[in-house]
């Protein structure tokens, strides 16, 4: 009974484990170990019909290597391609870094809940990112910029250890220049002494937030684990309700679709019910972080 065995791998398959073929159209180094990948389904029809939400992720699949989840960094408002920013840490990421432009990789998804855009529309938005936390939040950020009129006030705080380690540095410099949002950048320290902006940890930027309506604000955070505690404290100080504080969480995943069990926390699966959770979820569901 090997029906279905020759499903064209480039079209979406009835088998949710079947990776779609996508081509790396662009790649560039963001830092020494983080690389930006832009990929596009080999099938053009499919490329144009790609749909996803900021905060969702895809499983990247390399034959003979394995699969791993990565947040989508691009915005659905700029269709036809997907973007990832990926840190080289292990087997799959190590191999992926060997792939050049024009190579074919496997991708399946999108998976996960993504940000609750329906609820966020019309609200003030505060995005706080650190390090690789940019990956999912860049998607939200670009989405909001592309739909600027649908949201209220918009603050972005971005921190990195050093200027060289700030991901999408140029992009953020440009965003900073825009007048439809307030964007503040900071670095922990600056060996070059050329950094024109703030120095210090990301929480130092909070006093710059002036005109948020806290009850009407969605705050999002993604970054290294140490950041969460301090940033959430600041959100609470601002008076943002706990269920409007959003964060994306990470867990081991082998399937991305709620089968393999590895990302289970209590009664939820990070891959299906997350990876975006509210601070209230974190408080009432033990074990979430």
């Amino acid at each position: 009974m090997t029906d279905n065995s020759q499903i064209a791998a480039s079209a979406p398959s009835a088998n949710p484990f079947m990776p779609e073929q996508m081509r790396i159209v662009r790649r560039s180094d963001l830092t020494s170990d983080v690389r930006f990948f832009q990929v596009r389904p080999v099938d053009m029809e499919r490329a144009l019909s790609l749909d996803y939400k900021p905060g969702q992720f895809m499983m990247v699949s390399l034959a003979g290597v394995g699969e791993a989840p990565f947040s989508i960094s691009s915005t659905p408002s700029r269709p036809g391609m997907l973007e990832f920013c990926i840190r080289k840490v292990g087997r799959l990421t190590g191999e992926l870094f060997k792939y050049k432009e024009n190579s074919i990789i496997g991708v399946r998804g999108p998976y996960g809940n993504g940000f609750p855009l329906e609820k966020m529309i019309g609200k003030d938005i505060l995005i706080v990112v650190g390090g690789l936390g940019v990956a999912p939040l860049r998607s939200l950020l670009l989405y909001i910029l592309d739909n600027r009129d649908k949201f209220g006030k918009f603050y972005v705080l971005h921190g990195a250890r050093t200027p060289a380690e700030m991901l999408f540095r140029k992009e953020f410099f440009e965003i900073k220049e825009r007048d439809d949002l307030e964007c503040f950048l900071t670095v922990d320290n600056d060996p070059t002494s050329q950094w024109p902006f703030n120095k210090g940890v990301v929480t130092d930027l909070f006093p710059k937030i002036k005109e948020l309506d806290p009850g009407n604000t969605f705050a999002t955070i993604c970054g290294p684990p140490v950041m969460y505690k301090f940033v959430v404290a600041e959100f609470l100080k601002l008076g943002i309700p706990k269920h409007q504080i959003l964060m994306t969480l990470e867990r081991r995943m082998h399937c991305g679709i709620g089968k393999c069990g590895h990302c289970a926390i209590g009664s939820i699966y990070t891959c299906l019910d997350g990876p975006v959770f509210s601070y209230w979820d974190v408080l009432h569901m033990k074990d979430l972080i």
Partner: protein
Amino acid sequence: MAEIPKPKVGFYGFTGCAGDLLTILHCEDELLDIFNAVDIRSFLMASSDVHDDEELDIAFVEGSITTDHQLESLKGIRKRSKVLVAIGSCACFGGPQAARLGCGDWEKRFKKVYGEVKHTVAEPRESHPLDEYVKVDYCIPGCPIDKHQFFFALTRLAKGMPVELTTFPVCAECKWNENECLLLKGELCLGPVTAGGCNSRCPNHNLPCVGCWGPTSEANVASEINLLKERNFSAEEIVNKLRLFGGAAMVRRFADLLGIKTEEPAGKPRQKKARKPVAAGKAKKKTASKSPKAKSGKKR
């Protein structure tokens, strides 16, 4: 993807039974594929065509170190190789010849066997695993190794990728094979503390695991010992069993549980194993600290 040149591979054997290299030679169906997939530069047991001074991508080393000469060769292999893989329990743990490691009676035993003759061929020493002397990138355990696990490692390394070996103890595979649990039937089975990957061969044959793959990464030896004591096995018998193939790893990691005084090996500082699961040290302390009985009642 770019064509990668065939990796240069060497196979070496020190003190042991040669069972791991022979396991590879026993792969009739795959042998030619292996020779095609990688560029074998040295395999003394199979071929007299050896190139013993060149750089290697991967060195597979079987056997433990028991002479000065071997130690020198091992260091040479390490220097020439990008990745060094210990294959078999002797290379990984010192093998059965290291079962009395730490007992301090090696010289006495050596004299018992060889008398006072001064050997000219080699300066003998007590058996130690490879990672006592050089950095070992991977340990593929087994007495002998299992060919599937070896192929898995070989293909991964040939492609320049890391290798994940079985992290379960024997019991998991034993259940896959639907065996009746011998421990529950009162036999001294080391399945729960022994690294899996052998497909639970012995329980499949109604025989208890004798632990020939050495300790698993998270062996709860304290609990196993307590359980066996409840089943009326003597402490001596349990310890003997644990040490027979666990060798240096058992002795060192579980010395206080096994009631053994450990002596550091002559001279050489101990190197950390590269693929030790993260923070194994912490778990070790936890399991090793107190017996469960001592523990209950105390506040943590």
